[in-house]
């Protein structure tokens, strides 16, 4: 039987290298072609997982511990599918966006390719050390992308991002070292029963280190300081990639560790701590998003807030009845997917608006509603998901989370979610409102190519339709 797993990692590596060699023009075309291929690979993998449960693949025929094992279960397949789905329209978008920026474009495709390879590998890795490597690669590629356009702002942001990510991955690696010291294994599969059997204090320390490292990389409040400048300052396709996917990679790992590896040692108090940080993120991020004057910074702070929703999953799913935990878990994952799609669309739309108007302040986008209604519509649709209004994926996620919170009688999270939802509505409509304002006929306005607008709409629609096909995602997620 054909196994798509290694190809999902190899394909981006290959096209990234080729794109580096051949330059952006042919590289871009190649990337698009390969991305279509990857999407189908991910789809095949999803089918296989649904049909046959968890799949393992030993790279080069070498098994653990010396060789590298690849593993695909429901969660990782969902993430893989999400990644390819988001990157493909973004590739089209990027091709249109970078017209006339040959300099930036030169490294865009290779870096994106490596980023994608790292990410796919991360989702498929089945041991904690491999995960460290992919994590580090991911971080480096992402930093490269942030620094893509050059200039003081982006470089500073990239530097800050790099330091943060290095600190995070170092902490993670220390955790890995401690784990190995205790159990002599790094395989997720092998470690799980060992931890369940006996967990000395060192393991708790390792867990704290690994989780904290990943939280730093996920930009959970109050460690979000690096995110807004990095995501807000990068070119729009890069921001979209970073906000939609890169932080999700580290969150995916937190999920993995929390519910898989460290499930025996996590406690309700710890979950409440994470939830509290998440709540802080929701409120603080939304509040700051509301106060921003620049469009992309607003969207970036919105990411800070939305990351908070993801962390609400922990108090809702930890130590609760199986049903509640299931609901919360599904809600959390759906939120990851919905936010990924919506945030990609949102950043892309913001980029399109900025391109069209030539200004990056929110006050500059007046008249967008009449000039590029399609983009604004896409932004609004993505906003619907971010606000968690029906029938979007964000709503389905919020529904499940709310349901879990009510069932477990943790009303304080309900308050946070509701208030956060209202705040997010406030900042989304802050933009929409401005877009509806009339503008003088004389204001310069650049017409947008069609390929800059349609991928955004596609992404936004996907985030919306997710609410209607949520059950499919959940069935894939549940495939064990």
């Amino acid at each position, binding site marked *: 039987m054909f196994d798509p797993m290694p190809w999902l990692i190899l394909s981006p590596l290959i096209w990234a290298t080729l794109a580096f060699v051949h330059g952006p023009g042919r590289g871009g075309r190649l990337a698009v072609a390969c991305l279509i291929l990857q999407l189908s690979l991910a789809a095949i993998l999803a089918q296989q997982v649904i049909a046959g449960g968890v799949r393992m693949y030993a790279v080069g025929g070498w098994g653990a511990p010396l060789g590298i094992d690849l593993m695909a279960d429901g969660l990782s397949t969902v993430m893989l599918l999400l990644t390819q789905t988001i990157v493909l329209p973004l590739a089209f978008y990027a091709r249109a966006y970078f017209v006339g920026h040959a300099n930036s474009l030169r490294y865009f495709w290779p870096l994106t390719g490596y980023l994608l390879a790292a990410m796919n590998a991360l989702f498929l890795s089945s041991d904690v050390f491999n995960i460290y490597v992919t994590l580090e690669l991911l971080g480096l590629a992402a930093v*490269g992308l942030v620094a893509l356009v050059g200039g003081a702002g982006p*470089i*500073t942001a990239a530097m800050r991002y790099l330091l943060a990510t290095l*600190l995070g991955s170092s902490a993670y690696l*220390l955790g890995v070292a401690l784990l190995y*010291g205790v159990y*002599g294994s790094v395989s997720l599969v092998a470690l799980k029963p060992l931890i369940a059997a006996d967990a000395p204090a060192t393991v708790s320390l390792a867990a704290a280190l690994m989780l904290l490292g990943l939280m730093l990389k996920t930009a959970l409040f109050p460690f979000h300081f690096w995110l807004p400048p990095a995501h807000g300052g990068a070119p729009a396709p890069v921001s979209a990639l970073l906000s939609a996917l890169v932080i999700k990679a580290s969150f995916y790992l937190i999920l993995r560790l929390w519910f898989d590896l460290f499930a025996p040692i996590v406690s309700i108090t710890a979950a409440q701590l994470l939830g509290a940080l998440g709540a802080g993120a929701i409120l603080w991020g939304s509040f700051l998003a509301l106060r921003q004057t620049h469009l992309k910074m607003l969207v970036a702070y919105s990411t800070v807030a939305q990351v908070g929703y993801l962390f609400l999953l922990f108090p809702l799913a930890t130590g609760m009845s199986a049903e509640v935990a299931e609901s919360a878990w599904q809600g959390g994952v759906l939120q990851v997917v919905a936010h990924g799609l919506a945030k990609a669309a949102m950043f892309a739309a913001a980029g399109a608006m900025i391109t069209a108007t030539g200004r990056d302040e929110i006050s500059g986008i007046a008249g967008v509603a009449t000039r590029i209604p399609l983009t604004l519509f896409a932004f609004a649709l993505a906003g619907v998901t971010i606000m968690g209004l029906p029938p979007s994926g964000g709503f389905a996620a919020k529904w499940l989370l709310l349901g879990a919170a009510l069932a477990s009688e943790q009303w304080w999270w309900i308050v946070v979610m509701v208030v956060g939802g209202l705040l997010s509505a406030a900042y989304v409509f802050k933009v929409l409102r401005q877009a509806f304002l009339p503008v003088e006929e004389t204001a310069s306005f650049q017409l947008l190519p069609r390929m800059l607008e349609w991928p955004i709409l596609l992404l936004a629609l996907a985030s919306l339709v997710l609410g209607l096909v949520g059950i499919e995602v959940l069935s894939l997620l549940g495939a064990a």
Partner: protein
Amino acid sequence: MSSALVYALTGAALFVLGMAGLILQPHLLRKILAFNIMGSGIFLMLVGVAQRAGTPDPVPQAMVLTGIVVAIAATALALALARQLLDMNGEMRLPEEKTGKDRLDV
């Protein structure tokens, strides 16, 4: 005190030292160096772990090797970025840390 423990403790000390540097030192070069010290601490720990039960365990060795490669790549990228910052800003620090006491000039 077993040698593994010595390695572990030393490694931990180095890690904490490095972390403190990374967090507290405003100068970028120092931060990068501090990161490397952190990395060294971890590697030391892994190497210590590798000699469990008298027989050498190849897995941690492989991990350390991989780690070093990753650390070098990261250091290179960090240095490149730091250089660019120096070219643009005239100093090697992040804008929010302008008030640092540290006066190391390159």
